[in-house]
């Protein structure tokens, strides 16, 4: 699976993050290549969200590097990272609850706000992906069901035309059927050439759709490999179920 260095579009190396005394991430290295769909697995509190927040510039690392297309982005503010092409549907979604779905989506295109035509095009693409959002476009985002809100969050992240889309547990709290729909949409997104970095509880479902995966435990990467390697590995089950 090792590809040439210049093709690693996202490269995280030896990243550590601390909250005060608490070490949330320790020497984490991870990479995503062009067109890849990578899943990060791990129990709650293992450090997935911290990793994603740090990549997106919401937190500062205490050590290590993050580079994107060869450019160092660690410690840069979120708006800079977003404009480099990394967007995220974060844990807790962080929608603008009182704004309409449409406004949530157009705000997603904030960094390309002058590109009116492009925005409308992307909007159409999002509506195609999640047809329900077209129906609900005038409703305040906060009034939507959990699954629909998740769709808005993903749609919003797509509106910036990202090169890399980070999804932090998009199926969290969703009914199984809805969770399925959401993950299906993620696959479609990846097929358009957008790199995907996904955190997911449902390891089976996630591994089935991803190319590669990492397992995070206690702030460290304990396992990595291709889908096939990980699917057959009992270790994953250990990481989740402790046996």
């Amino acid at each position: 699976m090792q590809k040439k260095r210049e093709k690693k579009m996202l490269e995280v190396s030896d990243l550590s993050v601390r909250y005060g005394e608490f070490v949330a991430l320790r020497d984490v290295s991870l990479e995503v290549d062009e067109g890849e769909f990578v899943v990060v697995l791990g129990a709650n509190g293992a450090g997935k969200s911290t990793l994603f927040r740090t990549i997106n510039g919401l937190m500062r690392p205490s050590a290590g590097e993050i580079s994107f297309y060869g450019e160092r982005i660690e410690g840069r503010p979120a708006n800079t990272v977003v404009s480099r092409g990394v967007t995220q549907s974060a844990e807790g979604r962080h929608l603008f609850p009182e704004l309409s779905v449409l406004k949530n989506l157009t705000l997603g295109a904030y960094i390309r706000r002058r590109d009116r035509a492009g925005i409308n095009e992307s909007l159409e693409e999002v509506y195609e992906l999640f047809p329900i959002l077209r129906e609900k476009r005038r409703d305040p985002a906060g009034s939507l069901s959990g699954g629909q809100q998740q769709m808005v969050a993903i749609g919003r992240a797509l509106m910036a035309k990202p090169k890399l889309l980070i999804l932090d547990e998009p199926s969290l709290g969703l009914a199984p059927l809805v969770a399925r729909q959401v993950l299906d949409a993620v696959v479609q997104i990846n097929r358009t050439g957008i790199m995907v970095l996904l955190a997911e509880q449902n390891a089976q479902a996630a591994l089935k759709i991803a190319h590669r995966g990492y397992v995070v435990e206690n702030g460290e990467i304990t396992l990595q490999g291709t889908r096939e390697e990980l699917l057959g590995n009992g270790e994953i089950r250990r990481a989740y179920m402790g046996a």
Partner: protein
Amino acid sequence: MQVLSRHWRKLALAVVLLVALLIPLFIDNQYLLGLIMLAYIWAIAAYGLNVLLGYTGQLTLAHAGFFGIGAYTVGILTVNYGFPFWPSLLLAVVFASVLGFLIGIFALRTQNEYFAIFTLGVGFVIFLVIERWESFTGGSLGLIGVPYPEGLGPIQFEGPEQLYYLILAFLVLTIYVAASIAHSLVGRSFIAIRNSPDLAMAAGINVGRTKQLAFTISTAIAGLSGGLYATYIGFLGPAIVNVPTTFEILLYLLVGGMGSLSGPLIGAFLVTTIFEYFQQFEAYRLVIFGPVVILLIIFFPRGLAGLWGELEARVRRSPEKEAEGREEPSREEVR
């Protein structure tokens, strides 16, 4: 860990008290003596604010209102009804705290900024009542001729020195009470609520009732300082009850250091001193004073007492343990 040993601290405390006791013998200057008395009175008020804001973490902006209730209780009773000073002072404390208790029932339903601005409203309404209720409070004419306290046994209060000792005694009493509370289980409950209301609750503390208690104590002390102010100044006008007075008291506390035992006293002394010193700049003094306040808040957010604590902590802390992980959108938590 402690910079001064217990022994030395006791000695130093004795020295400070001795200096305070000797001041009138050395200073034959009524202006300075008056200034010190005023600083003592404001310090008492600031101790009251400290109970609520410093220990319990609730920002009240009605403090001048309760100060005013204390002052006007003494003023009205002595001037309009010829009451002696001592029972009037007692009633001032009682009245301020009872009113504080009642208002606290409503005020403490609100939280954070809402509590601050609710109490700002309370303070302003108290001011309006005092300013407009002419027949009772003298309105904006004020009350003239609040007497000096009558003698207690052999002690007479006829001159500024005696009054100085009286106010000093109340200051020492206030500090003693504040220290007693701070070191008691009640005080620990206050601090627990400031640190984390949830954790306090999980430790079995009745948060609502404890805040109510802190609010009541705070207003009682405000009432006491108001009553002393009335006899010190001899004349009461509504301006002293108005909102800016609250901000002045708050400033004393912030400059000195919230939540500390020495903060209110240091702050009251320093700010009154700086402010008097700036008199020489006349109209420019607030032009200078404003930025000084801002710089203090930015660079010494925990006041001078806090500065001392930080120095102490810096000595203790090993350098490699500097915290790093910083949450970027830090105001989010406020919501």
